[in-house]
Protein backbone atom coordinates (compact mmCIF):
# COMPACT_ATOMS: atom_id res chain seq x y z
CA UNK A 1 0.00 0.00 0.00
CA UNK A 2 2.73 2.39 0.92
CA UNK A 3 4.23 2.12 -2.57
CA UNK A 4 1.13 3.65 -4.09
CA UNK A 5 1.57 7.28 -4.93
CA UNK A 6 -2.07 8.19 -5.43
CA UNK A 7 -3.94 8.51 -2.13
CA UNK A 8 -5.93 5.33 -1.69
CA UNK A 9 -9.62 5.28 -0.99
CA UNK A 10 -10.52 4.47 2.63
CA UNK A 11 -14.29 4.67 2.54
CA UNK A 12 -16.50 4.34 -0.47
CA UNK A 13 -20.24 4.83 -0.07
CA UNK A 14 -22.51 3.97 -2.99
CA UNK A 15 -26.17 4.92 -3.15
CA UNK A 16 -26.83 4.48 0.57
CA UNK A 17 -30.47 4.32 1.66
CA UNK A 18 -31.82 4.13 5.18
CA UNK A 19 -35.45 4.07 6.27
CA UNK A 20 -36.97 4.08 9.73
CA UNK A 21 -40.36 2.51 9.00
CA UNK A 22 -41.98 5.11 6.71
CA UNK A 23 -39.33 7.76 7.28
CA UNK A 24 -36.84 7.84 4.44
CA UNK A 25 -33.82 9.32 6.19
CA UNK A 26 -30.99 8.67 3.72
CA UNK A 27 -32.05 8.88 0.09
CA UNK A 28 -29.05 7.66 -1.82
CA UNK A 29 -25.77 9.02 -0.54
CA UNK A 30 -22.59 8.38 -2.52
CA UNK A 31 -19.16 9.66 -1.65
CA UNK A 32 -15.60 8.60 -1.02
CA UNK A 33 -13.11 9.40 1.69
CA UNK A 34 -9.39 9.04 1.03
CA UNK A 35 -6.75 7.97 3.52
CA UNK A 36 -5.79 10.79 5.88
CA UNK A 37 -8.61 12.93 4.62
CA UNK A 38 -10.66 14.91 7.13
CA UNK A 39 -14.26 15.20 5.99
CA UNK A 40 -16.73 17.44 7.76
CA UNK A 41 -20.44 16.65 7.52
CA UNK A 42 -22.83 19.57 7.91
CA UNK A 43 -26.54 20.02 7.54
CA UNK A 44 -29.68 21.04 9.32
CA UNK A 45 -31.06 19.05 12.24
CA UNK A 46 -32.79 15.89 11.12
CA UNK A 47 -31.03 15.83 7.75
CA UNK A 48 -29.55 12.41 8.52
CA UNK A 49 -25.96 13.27 9.48
CA UNK A 50 -25.90 10.99 12.53
CA UNK A 51 -27.67 8.24 10.67
CA UNK A 52 -25.11 8.47 7.84
CA UNK A 53 -22.23 8.22 10.29
CA UNK A 54 -23.83 5.37 12.20
CA UNK A 55 -24.37 3.41 8.99
CA UNK A 56 -20.63 3.58 8.33
CA UNK A 57 -19.91 1.31 11.30
CA UNK A 58 -23.26 -0.42 11.13
CA UNK A 59 -24.68 0.88 14.37
CA UNK A 60 -27.58 1.31 11.97
CA UNK A 61 -28.18 -1.25 9.25
CA UNK A 62 -28.63 0.46 5.87
CA UNK A 63 -31.57 -0.69 3.77
CA UNK A 64 -29.69 -0.65 0.50
CA UNK A 65 -26.49 0.56 -1.10
CA UNK A 66 -22.86 -0.36 -0.52
CA UNK A 67 -20.19 0.67 1.90
CA UNK A 68 -16.60 -0.35 1.25
CA UNK A 69 -13.94 0.20 3.87
CA UNK A 70 -10.48 -0.29 2.35
CA UNK A 71 -12.24 -2.13 -0.44
CA UNK A 72 -14.09 -4.54 1.88
CA UNK A 73 -17.86 -4.65 1.53
CA UNK A 74 -18.89 -4.20 5.15
CA UNK A 75 -22.55 -4.90 4.46
CA UNK A 76 -21.70 -8.42 3.39
CA UNK A 77 -23.20 -11.03 5.72
CA UNK A 78 -19.82 -12.76 5.87
CA UNK A 79 -18.20 -9.85 7.67
CA UNK A 80 -17.40 -10.08 11.38
CA UNK A 81 -18.73 -6.69 12.29
CA UNK A 82 -17.06 -6.69 15.71
CA UNK A 83 -13.65 -7.11 14.09
CA UNK A 84 -14.47 -4.47 11.56
CA UNK A 85 -15.53 -1.95 14.18
CA UNK A 86 -12.13 -2.19 15.80
CA UNK A 87 -10.80 -0.37 12.72
CA UNK A 88 -13.22 2.50 13.23
CA UNK A 89 -13.30 4.61 16.36
CA UNK A 90 -16.43 6.53 17.23
CA UNK A 91 -16.89 9.57 19.46
CA UNK A 92 -20.39 10.53 20.52
CA UNK A 93 -22.06 13.80 21.35
CA UNK A 94 -22.88 12.56 24.86
CA UNK A 95 -19.40 11.04 25.51
CA UNK A 96 -20.88 7.70 26.69
CA UNK A 97 -17.97 6.86 28.95
CA UNK A 98 -18.63 3.81 31.10
CA UNK A 99 -19.54 5.31 34.48
CA UNK A 100 -18.56 2.27 36.54
CA UNK A 101 -14.96 2.33 35.32
CA UNK A 102 -12.13 4.76 35.85
CA UNK A 103 -10.76 6.66 32.88
CA UNK A 104 -7.86 4.30 32.40
CA UNK A 105 -10.20 1.29 32.68
CA UNK A 106 -12.43 2.87 30.05
CA UNK A 107 -9.44 3.20 27.76
CA UNK A 108 -8.03 -0.29 28.48
CA UNK A 109 -11.28 -2.24 28.18
CA UNK A 110 -11.53 -2.79 24.44
CA UNK A 111 -7.82 -3.34 23.73
CA UNK A 112 -7.74 -6.04 26.42
CA UNK A 113 -10.98 -7.81 25.63
CA UNK A 114 -11.33 -7.27 21.90
CA UNK A 115 -7.71 -6.99 20.73
CA UNK A 116 -6.67 -9.40 23.52
CA UNK A 117 -3.47 -7.56 24.34
CA UNK A 118 -1.99 -7.99 27.81
CA UNK A 119 -3.06 -5.83 30.71
CA UNK A 120 0.38 -4.25 31.01
CA UNK A 121 0.51 -3.39 27.36
CA UNK A 122 -3.03 -2.01 27.47
CA UNK A 123 -2.15 0.08 30.51
CA UNK A 124 0.95 1.48 28.85
CA UNK A 125 -0.97 2.32 25.71
CA UNK A 126 -3.81 3.80 27.73
CA UNK A 127 -1.59 6.08 29.78
CA UNK A 128 0.15 7.29 26.62
CA UNK A 129 -3.18 8.16 25.08
CA UNK A 130 -4.41 9.90 28.21
CA UNK A 131 -1.17 11.89 28.14
CA UNK A 132 -1.84 12.77 24.54
CA UNK A 133 -5.25 14.21 25.42
CA UNK A 134 -3.72 15.90 28.48
CA UNK A 135 -5.46 13.79 31.12
CA UNK A 136 -2.87 11.33 32.41
CA UNK A 137 -3.36 12.82 35.87
CA UNK A 138 -7.04 11.82 35.75
CA UNK A 139 -6.35 8.17 34.91
CA UNK A 140 -7.88 6.89 38.14
CA UNK A 141 -10.78 9.32 38.27
CA UNK A 142 -14.30 8.22 37.46
CA UNK A 143 -16.05 9.93 34.52
CA UNK A 144 -18.53 11.74 36.77
CA UNK A 145 -15.61 13.51 38.43
CA UNK A 146 -14.57 15.09 35.13
CA UNK A 147 -15.86 18.10 33.25
CA UNK A 148 -17.62 17.54 29.94
CA UNK A 149 -14.58 18.56 27.95
CA UNK A 150 -12.38 16.19 29.92
CA UNK A 151 -14.86 13.36 29.47
CA UNK A 152 -14.92 13.89 25.74
CA UNK A 153 -11.11 13.83 25.60
CA UNK A 154 -11.12 10.53 27.51
CA UNK A 155 -13.72 9.24 25.05
CA UNK A 156 -11.37 10.15 22.21
CA UNK A 157 -8.51 8.37 23.95
CA UNK A 158 -10.74 5.33 24.44
CA UNK A 159 -11.52 5.21 20.73
CA UNK A 160 -7.86 5.72 19.80
CA UNK A 161 -6.78 2.87 22.07
CA UNK A 162 -8.01 0.41 19.47
CA UNK A 163 -5.58 2.01 17.00
CA UNK A 164 -8.33 2.51 14.45
CA UNK A 165 -7.78 3.41 10.80
CA UNK A 166 -10.68 5.82 10.80
CA UNK A 167 -12.29 8.05 13.43
CA UNK A 168 -15.93 9.11 13.37
CA UNK A 169 -17.06 12.09 15.43
CA UNK A 170 -20.76 12.85 15.87
CA UNK A 171 -21.08 16.45 17.07
CA UNK A 172 -18.33 15.93 19.65
CA UNK A 173 -18.55 19.46 21.01
CA UNK A 174 -22.22 20.31 20.87
CA UNK A 175 -22.94 19.06 24.39
CA UNK A 176 -20.07 21.12 25.82
CA UNK A 177 -19.94 24.49 27.51
CA UNK A 178 -18.24 27.03 25.20
CA UNK A 179 -15.05 27.23 27.26
CA UNK A 180 -14.46 23.49 26.88
CA UNK A 181 -14.98 23.24 23.13
CA UNK A 182 -11.46 24.43 22.38
CA UNK A 183 -9.67 21.69 24.30
CA UNK A 184 -11.58 18.97 22.43
CA UNK A 185 -11.10 20.60 19.03
CA UNK A 186 -7.37 20.91 19.76
CA UNK A 187 -7.11 17.17 20.29
CA UNK A 188 -9.02 16.58 17.06
CA UNK A 189 -6.80 19.00 15.14
CA UNK A 190 -3.72 17.17 16.38
CA UNK A 191 -5.20 13.89 15.18
CA UNK A 192 -5.96 15.42 11.79
CA UNK A 193 -2.38 16.71 11.48
CA UNK A 194 -1.04 13.26 12.32
CA UNK A 195 -2.85 11.89 9.30
CA UNK A 196 -5.87 10.18 10.85
CA UNK A 197 -8.75 9.62 8.45
CA UNK A 198 -11.69 11.42 10.03
CA UNK A 199 -15.37 11.95 9.34
CA UNK A 200 -16.67 14.67 11.61
CA UNK A 201 -20.25 15.83 12.01
CA UNK A 202 -19.74 19.34 13.32
CA UNK A 203 -20.75 22.92 12.85
CA UNK A 204 -17.57 24.39 14.30
CA UNK A 205 -16.63 26.62 11.36
CA UNK A 206 -13.21 27.54 12.73
CA UNK A 207 -12.23 23.93 13.18
CA UNK A 208 -13.60 22.92 9.80
CA UNK A 209 -11.76 25.71 8.00
CA UNK A 210 -8.52 24.80 9.72
CA UNK A 211 -8.64 21.02 9.77
CA UNK A 212 -11.10 19.74 7.18
CA UNK A 213 -10.16 18.89 3.61
CA UNK A 214 -13.71 18.61 2.43
CA UNK A 215 -17.22 19.46 3.56
CA UNK A 216 -20.29 17.36 2.80
CA UNK A 217 -23.54 19.23 3.09
CA UNK A 218 -26.57 17.02 3.77
CA UNK A 219 -30.18 18.16 3.61
CA UNK A 220 -33.27 15.96 3.74
CA UNK A 221 -31.22 12.79 3.36
CA UNK A 222 -29.45 13.94 0.22
CA UNK A 223 -25.87 14.99 -0.31
CA UNK A 224 -26.68 18.44 -1.59
CA UNK A 225 -23.23 19.85 -2.05
CA UNK A 226 -19.61 19.01 -1.37
CA UNK A 227 -16.35 20.85 -1.68
CA UNK A 228 -13.46 22.36 0.20
CA UNK A 229 -14.35 24.45 3.25
CA UNK A 230 -13.51 27.62 1.30
CA UNK A 231 -15.76 26.68 -1.59
CA UNK A 232 -18.65 25.77 0.68
CA UNK A 233 -18.35 28.66 3.11
CA UNK A 234 -17.42 31.44 0.71
CA UNK A 235 -19.23 30.40 -2.41
CA UNK A 236 -22.09 27.96 -1.71
CA UNK A 237 -23.90 26.88 -4.86
CA UNK A 238 -27.08 25.34 -3.57
CA UNK A 239 -29.94 27.32 -2.05
CA UNK A 240 -30.19 24.95 0.95
CA UNK A 241 -26.51 25.43 1.70
CA UNK A 242 -26.73 29.22 1.44
CA UNK A 243 -29.79 29.26 3.65
CA UNK A 244 -28.19 27.02 6.28
CA UNK A 245 -24.88 28.91 6.34
CA UNK A 246 -26.65 32.22 6.68
CA UNK A 247 -28.33 30.85 9.80
CA UNK A 248 -25.25 29.54 11.56
CA UNK A 249 -22.82 32.30 10.64
Amino acid at each position, binding site marked *: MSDQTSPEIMIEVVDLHKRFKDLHVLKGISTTVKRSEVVAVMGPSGSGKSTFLRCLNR*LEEPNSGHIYIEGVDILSPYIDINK*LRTEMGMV*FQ*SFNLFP*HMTCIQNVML*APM*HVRKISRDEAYERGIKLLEKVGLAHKADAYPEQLSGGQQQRVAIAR*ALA*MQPQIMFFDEPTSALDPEMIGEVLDVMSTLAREGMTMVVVSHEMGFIRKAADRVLFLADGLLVEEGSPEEIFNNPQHARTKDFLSKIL
Partner: protein
Amino acid sequence: MPMTTATTAKANTSAKFMRSHPAWMHWVRHPYFLRGTLVALILYALFLLPAPGAPAALADKLNLGVFTVLVLAWSALILADGDRPDWLQSIVAFGLVGVMGWLFYRYSGAHWDKLAAAFFDWGRLSGSWWLLLDGLKVTLLIGLISTFLSVLIGAAVGILRTLGSPTLNLFLTAYIDIFRSIPMAVLMVVIFFALPYMGISFGSIATTVVALSIGYGAYASESFRAGFEAIHYGQIEAARALGLSRWQCMRMIMLPQAIPVVIPSLTGILVSMLKDTAVASLVASPELLKRARELYTSKASPTPLVASALIYLVVIIPLTRLANLLEHRMKKVR
Protein backbone atom coordinates in the same frame (compact mmCIF):
# COMPACT_ATOMS: atom_id res chain seq x y z
CA MET B 1 -34.91 42.05 84.29
CA PRO B 2 -32.68 43.96 81.88
CA MET B 3 -32.64 42.58 78.33
CA THR B 4 -29.04 41.94 77.51
CA THR B 5 -28.97 39.79 74.42
CA ALA B 6 -30.60 40.07 71.06
CA THR B 7 -32.23 36.65 71.43
CA THR B 8 -34.19 37.63 74.52
CA ALA B 9 -35.28 40.77 72.75
CA LYS B 10 -36.47 38.72 69.84
CA ALA B 11 -38.23 36.18 72.03
CA ASN B 12 -39.91 39.05 73.79
CA THR B 13 -41.24 40.65 70.65
CA SER B 14 -42.58 37.31 69.40
CA ALA B 15 -44.26 36.69 72.76
CA LYS B 16 -45.77 40.15 72.53
CA PHE B 17 -46.92 39.40 69.00
CA MET B 18 -48.58 36.21 70.16
CA ARG B 19 -50.29 38.02 72.98
CA SER B 20 -51.84 40.49 70.59
CA HIS B 21 -52.68 37.80 67.98
CA PRO B 22 -53.58 34.66 69.97
CA ALA B 23 -54.20 31.43 68.02
CA TRP B 24 -57.58 29.80 68.34
CA MET B 25 -57.71 27.76 71.58
CA HIS B 26 -54.07 28.61 72.24
CA TRP B 27 -54.51 27.81 75.89
CA VAL B 28 -54.62 24.05 75.19
CA ARG B 29 -50.91 24.30 74.43
CA HIS B 30 -50.10 26.00 77.66
CA PRO B 31 -47.86 23.93 79.96
CA TYR B 32 -50.11 24.62 82.95
CA PHE B 33 -53.14 23.30 81.10
CA LEU B 34 -51.28 20.16 79.99
CA ARG B 35 -49.86 19.46 83.44
CA GLY B 36 -53.22 20.08 85.11
CA THR B 37 -55.10 17.77 82.79
CA LEU B 38 -52.43 15.10 83.16
CA VAL B 39 -52.87 15.15 86.93
CA ALA B 40 -56.64 15.02 86.44
CA LEU B 41 -56.29 11.97 84.17
CA ILE B 42 -54.11 10.19 86.71
CA LEU B 43 -56.63 10.90 89.44
CA TYR B 44 -59.37 9.63 87.11
CA ALA B 45 -57.45 6.41 86.55
CA LEU B 46 -56.83 5.91 90.24
CA PHE B 47 -60.28 6.67 91.64
CA LEU B 48 -62.99 6.71 89.00
CA LEU B 49 -62.34 3.69 86.76
CA PRO B 50 -64.53 0.61 87.22
CA ALA B 51 -63.24 -2.52 88.93
CA PRO B 52 -61.13 -4.97 86.83
CA GLY B 53 -62.88 -7.52 84.62
CA ALA B 54 -64.96 -7.15 81.50
CA PRO B 55 -67.38 -4.24 82.15
CA ALA B 56 -70.98 -5.41 82.18
CA ALA B 57 -72.99 -2.33 83.14
CA LEU B 58 -73.58 0.34 80.53
CA ALA B 59 -72.28 2.98 82.94
CA ASP B 60 -68.97 1.14 83.25
CA LYS B 61 -68.66 0.86 79.49
CA LEU B 62 -69.33 4.56 79.08
CA ASN B 63 -66.89 5.32 81.86
CA LEU B 64 -64.14 3.38 80.09
CA GLY B 65 -65.01 4.97 76.76
CA VAL B 66 -64.78 8.48 78.17
CA PHE B 67 -61.46 7.73 79.82
CA THR B 68 -60.02 6.28 76.61
CA VAL B 69 -61.11 9.28 74.58
CA LEU B 70 -59.63 11.68 77.13
CA VAL B 71 -56.31 9.83 77.16
CA LEU B 72 -56.19 9.83 73.36
CA ALA B 73 -57.07 13.51 73.19
CA TRP B 74 -54.43 14.46 75.74
CA SER B 75 -51.75 12.45 73.87
CA ALA B 76 -52.79 14.03 70.62
CA LEU B 77 -52.13 17.48 72.09
CA ILE B 78 -48.48 16.50 72.50
CA LEU B 79 -47.99 14.15 69.55
CA ALA B 80 -49.61 16.37 66.95
CA ASP B 81 -47.73 19.45 68.14
CA GLY B 82 -44.66 19.92 65.97
CA ASP B 83 -43.06 22.27 68.48
CA ARG B 84 -42.77 19.62 71.20
CA PRO B 85 -39.32 18.08 71.61
CA ASP B 86 -38.77 14.56 70.34
CA TRP B 87 -38.00 13.10 73.74
CA LEU B 88 -41.31 14.31 75.14
CA GLN B 89 -43.19 12.91 72.18
CA SER B 90 -41.52 9.51 72.56
CA ILE B 91 -42.32 9.41 76.27
CA VAL B 92 -45.95 10.22 75.54
CA ALA B 93 -46.13 7.69 72.71
CA PHE B 94 -44.72 4.89 74.83
CA GLY B 95 -46.90 6.01 77.75
CA LEU B 96 -49.95 5.83 75.51
CA VAL B 97 -49.09 2.31 74.39
CA GLY B 98 -48.57 1.38 78.06
CA VAL B 99 -51.89 2.82 79.18
CA MET B 100 -53.76 1.10 76.36
CA GLY B 101 -52.09 -2.21 77.19
CA TRP B 102 -52.96 -1.74 80.82
CA LEU B 103 -56.60 -1.01 79.98
CA PHE B 104 -56.74 -4.06 77.73
CA TYR B 105 -55.13 -6.24 80.38
CA ARG B 106 -57.54 -4.98 83.06
CA TYR B 107 -60.80 -4.91 81.16
CA SER B 108 -60.63 -7.44 78.31
CA GLY B 109 -61.81 -10.17 80.63
CA ALA B 110 -59.25 -12.61 79.21
CA HIS B 111 -57.88 -15.26 81.50
CA TRP B 112 -54.29 -14.21 81.23
CA ASP B 113 -52.91 -17.01 83.32
CA LYS B 114 -54.63 -19.61 81.14
CA LEU B 115 -53.58 -17.83 77.95
CA ALA B 116 -49.99 -17.68 79.09
CA ALA B 117 -50.17 -21.35 79.92
CA ALA B 118 -51.47 -22.17 76.45
CA PHE B 119 -49.33 -19.88 74.27
CA PHE B 120 -46.10 -19.79 76.21
CA ASP B 121 -45.98 -23.24 77.69
CA TRP B 122 -42.28 -23.59 76.96
CA GLY B 123 -42.02 -26.57 79.33
CA ARG B 124 -44.10 -28.63 76.92
CA LEU B 125 -41.66 -27.88 74.12
CA SER B 126 -38.67 -29.23 75.99
CA GLY B 127 -37.20 -32.11 74.04
CA SER B 128 -39.01 -31.01 70.87
CA TRP B 129 -36.98 -27.94 70.00
CA TRP B 130 -34.79 -30.03 67.73
CA LEU B 131 -37.84 -30.75 65.59
CA LEU B 132 -38.43 -27.05 65.09
CA LEU B 133 -34.76 -26.42 64.40
CA ASP B 134 -34.82 -29.30 61.92
CA GLY B 135 -37.73 -27.55 60.26
CA LEU B 136 -35.77 -24.29 60.23
CA LYS B 137 -32.89 -26.06 58.53
CA VAL B 138 -35.20 -27.32 55.79
CA THR B 139 -36.73 -23.86 55.45
CA LEU B 140 -33.30 -22.27 55.05
CA LEU B 141 -32.16 -24.96 52.65
CA ILE B 142 -35.24 -24.48 50.49
CA GLY B 143 -34.78 -20.71 50.73
CA LEU B 144 -31.12 -20.85 49.72
CA ILE B 145 -31.56 -23.13 46.73
CA SER B 146 -34.63 -21.25 45.54
CA THR B 147 -32.83 -17.92 45.95
CA PHE B 148 -30.00 -19.14 43.78
CA LEU B 149 -32.29 -20.61 41.13
CA SER B 150 -34.73 -17.71 41.01
CA VAL B 151 -31.93 -15.16 40.64
CA LEU B 152 -30.50 -17.33 37.88
CA ILE B 153 -33.86 -17.55 36.12
CA GLY B 154 -34.50 -13.84 36.66
CA ALA B 155 -31.13 -12.86 35.22
CA ALA B 156 -31.51 -15.20 32.26
CA VAL B 157 -35.00 -13.98 31.42
CA GLY B 158 -33.94 -10.36 31.94
CA ILE B 159 -30.93 -10.82 29.65
CA LEU B 160 -33.00 -12.58 26.99
CA ARG B 161 -35.44 -9.69 27.03
CA THR B 162 -32.69 -7.23 26.19
CA LEU B 163 -32.28 -9.03 22.86
CA GLY B 164 -35.54 -7.36 21.84
CA SER B 165 -36.85 -10.21 19.73
CA PRO B 166 -40.66 -9.85 19.56
CA THR B 167 -41.41 -13.58 19.44
CA LEU B 168 -39.09 -14.38 22.31
CA ASN B 169 -40.50 -11.47 24.31
CA LEU B 170 -44.00 -12.81 23.81
CA PHE B 171 -43.03 -16.07 25.48
CA LEU B 172 -41.05 -14.41 28.23
CA THR B 173 -43.82 -11.95 29.02
CA ALA B 174 -46.30 -14.83 29.12
CA TYR B 175 -44.07 -16.65 31.61
CA ILE B 176 -43.72 -13.56 33.79
CA ASP B 177 -47.40 -12.66 33.76
CA ILE B 178 -48.61 -16.19 34.40
CA PHE B 179 -46.33 -16.95 37.30
CA ARG B 180 -46.74 -13.57 38.91
CA SER B 181 -50.50 -14.10 38.87
CA ILE B 182 -50.71 -17.62 40.29
CA PRO B 183 -50.70 -17.65 44.10
CA MET B 184 -47.73 -19.59 45.44
CA ALA B 185 -50.01 -21.99 47.32
CA VAL B 186 -51.87 -22.86 44.12
CA LEU B 187 -48.65 -23.29 42.18
CA MET B 188 -47.26 -25.71 44.74
CA VAL B 189 -50.43 -27.72 45.01
CA VAL B 190 -50.72 -27.97 41.23
CA ILE B 191 -47.12 -29.12 40.85
CA PHE B 192 -47.45 -31.58 43.71
CA PHE B 193 -50.90 -33.05 43.13
CA ALA B 194 -51.75 -32.38 39.48
CA LEU B 195 -48.51 -32.82 37.55
CA PRO B 196 -48.08 -36.46 38.63
CA TYR B 197 -51.10 -37.26 36.43
CA MET B 198 -48.93 -36.10 33.52
CA GLY B 199 -46.17 -38.38 34.65
CA ILE B 200 -44.14 -35.55 36.18
CA SER B 201 -43.74 -35.94 39.90
CA PHE B 202 -41.47 -34.22 42.34
CA GLY B 203 -40.91 -34.96 46.00
CA SER B 204 -42.30 -32.43 48.42
CA ILE B 205 -39.08 -30.48 48.89
CA ALA B 206 -38.32 -30.51 45.17
CA THR B 207 -41.86 -29.29 44.49
CA THR B 208 -41.30 -26.39 46.85
CA VAL B 209 -37.99 -25.46 45.28
CA VAL B 210 -39.37 -25.68 41.76
CA ALA B 211 -42.45 -23.62 42.58
CA LEU B 212 -40.52 -20.94 44.46
CA SER B 213 -37.81 -20.71 41.80
CA ILE B 214 -40.21 -20.43 38.90
CA GLY B 215 -42.57 -18.07 40.71
CA TYR B 216 -39.96 -15.78 42.18
CA GLY B 217 -37.82 -16.08 39.03
CA ALA B 218 -40.64 -14.18 37.33
CA TYR B 219 -40.44 -11.41 39.92
CA ALA B 220 -36.65 -11.35 39.79
CA SER B 221 -36.68 -11.01 36.01
CA GLU B 222 -38.74 -7.85 36.38
CA SER B 223 -36.08 -6.46 38.70
CA PHE B 224 -33.42 -7.23 36.14
CA ARG B 225 -35.46 -5.67 33.38
CA ALA B 226 -35.78 -2.46 35.39
CA GLY B 227 -32.03 -2.58 35.96
CA PHE B 228 -31.27 -2.92 32.26
CA GLU B 229 -33.77 -0.28 31.31
CA ALA B 230 -32.06 2.20 33.60
CA ILE B 231 -28.95 1.99 31.40
CA HIS B 232 -28.54 4.77 28.87
CA TYR B 233 -28.70 3.45 25.31
CA GLY B 234 -25.47 5.31 24.50
CA GLN B 235 -23.61 2.92 26.78
CA ILE B 236 -24.48 -0.04 24.61
CA GLU B 237 -23.68 1.87 21.42
CA ALA B 238 -20.32 2.94 22.77
CA ALA B 239 -19.48 -0.62 23.74
CA ARG B 240 -20.56 -2.03 20.39
CA ALA B 241 -18.70 0.70 18.51
CA LEU B 242 -15.53 -0.39 20.29
CA GLY B 243 -16.03 -3.88 18.88
CA LEU B 244 -17.29 -5.59 22.02
CA SER B 245 -19.57 -8.51 21.23
CA ARG B 246 -23.13 -8.58 22.53
CA TRP B 247 -22.17 -10.94 25.33
CA GLN B 248 -19.09 -8.92 26.30
CA CYS B 249 -21.25 -5.82 26.33
CA MET B 250 -23.73 -7.56 28.62
CA ARG B 251 -21.01 -8.84 30.94
CA MET B 252 -18.76 -5.81 31.16
CA ILE B 253 -21.05 -2.86 30.57
CA MET B 254 -24.67 -3.73 31.23
CA LEU B 255 -24.58 -6.15 34.17
CA PRO B 256 -22.18 -4.05 36.27
CA GLN B 257 -24.43 -1.03 35.79
CA ALA B 258 -27.67 -2.94 36.31
CA ILE B 259 -26.69 -4.80 39.48
CA PRO B 260 -26.68 -1.80 41.83
CA VAL B 261 -30.19 -1.02 40.60
CA VAL B 262 -31.31 -4.64 40.85
CA ILE B 263 -29.96 -5.62 44.26
CA PRO B 264 -32.28 -3.68 46.56
CA SER B 265 -35.50 -4.82 44.91
CA LEU B 266 -34.10 -8.31 44.53
CA THR B 267 -33.35 -8.53 48.26
CA GLY B 268 -36.92 -7.52 49.00
CA ILE B 269 -38.21 -10.22 46.68
CA LEU B 270 -36.00 -12.85 48.29
CA VAL B 271 -37.27 -11.95 51.75
CA SER B 272 -40.83 -12.47 50.52
CA MET B 273 -39.74 -15.76 49.11
CA LEU B 274 -38.30 -16.90 52.42
CA LYS B 275 -41.67 -16.16 54.01
CA ASP B 276 -43.42 -18.07 51.26
CA THR B 277 -41.45 -21.20 52.12
CA ALA B 278 -44.11 -21.64 54.81
CA VAL B 279 -46.59 -22.41 52.04
CA ALA B 280 -44.61 -25.60 51.49
CA SER B 281 -46.33 -27.13 54.50
CA LEU B 282 -49.28 -27.56 52.13
CA VAL B 283 -47.33 -30.16 50.20
CA ALA B 284 -45.88 -31.68 53.35
CA SER B 285 -42.34 -30.35 53.05
CA PRO B 286 -40.84 -30.93 56.48
CA GLU B 287 -40.07 -27.22 56.93
CA LEU B 288 -40.57 -25.05 59.97
CA LEU B 289 -44.32 -24.45 59.81
CA LYS B 290 -45.03 -28.11 59.05
CA ARG B 291 -42.99 -29.16 62.08
CA ALA B 292 -44.74 -26.60 64.26
CA ARG B 293 -48.14 -27.89 63.17
CA GLU B 294 -47.13 -31.47 63.89
CA LEU B 295 -46.10 -30.46 67.38
CA TYR B 296 -49.29 -28.43 67.75
CA THR B 297 -51.27 -31.61 67.15
CA SER B 298 -49.14 -34.00 69.14
CA LYS B 299 -48.75 -31.69 72.16
CA ALA B 300 -52.27 -30.24 71.91
CA SER B 301 -50.82 -26.79 72.57
CA PRO B 302 -50.46 -23.64 70.42
CA THR B 303 -47.04 -22.96 71.92
CA PRO B 304 -45.13 -24.57 69.01
CA LEU B 305 -46.94 -22.26 66.58
CA VAL B 306 -45.95 -19.23 68.66
CA ALA B 307 -42.41 -20.57 68.76
CA SER B 308 -42.32 -20.91 64.97
CA ALA B 309 -43.58 -17.33 64.60
CA LEU B 310 -40.76 -16.16 66.86
CA ILE B 311 -38.21 -18.15 64.85
CA TYR B 312 -39.45 -16.58 61.58
CA LEU B 313 -39.13 -13.15 63.20
CA VAL B 314 -35.61 -13.80 64.36
CA VAL B 315 -34.53 -15.02 60.93
CA ILE B 316 -36.38 -12.57 58.74
CA ILE B 317 -36.09 -9.26 60.58
CA PRO B 318 -32.31 -9.09 60.07
CA LEU B 319 -32.82 -9.87 56.39
CA THR B 320 -35.38 -7.10 56.03
CA ARG B 321 -32.99 -4.71 57.73
CA LEU B 322 -30.26 -5.85 55.37
CA ALA B 323 -32.52 -5.20 52.40
CA ASN B 324 -33.22 -1.68 53.62
CA LEU B 325 -29.55 -1.06 54.28
CA LEU B 326 -28.61 -2.21 50.78
CA GLU B 327 -31.26 0.00 49.27
CA HIS B 328 -29.87 2.94 51.19
CA ARG B 329 -26.29 2.17 50.23
CA MET B 330 -27.06 1.74 46.57
CA LYS B 331 -28.99 4.99 46.47
CA LYS B 332 -25.97 6.76 47.89
CA VAL B 333 -23.61 5.11 45.43
CA ARG B 334 -25.60 6.24 42.41
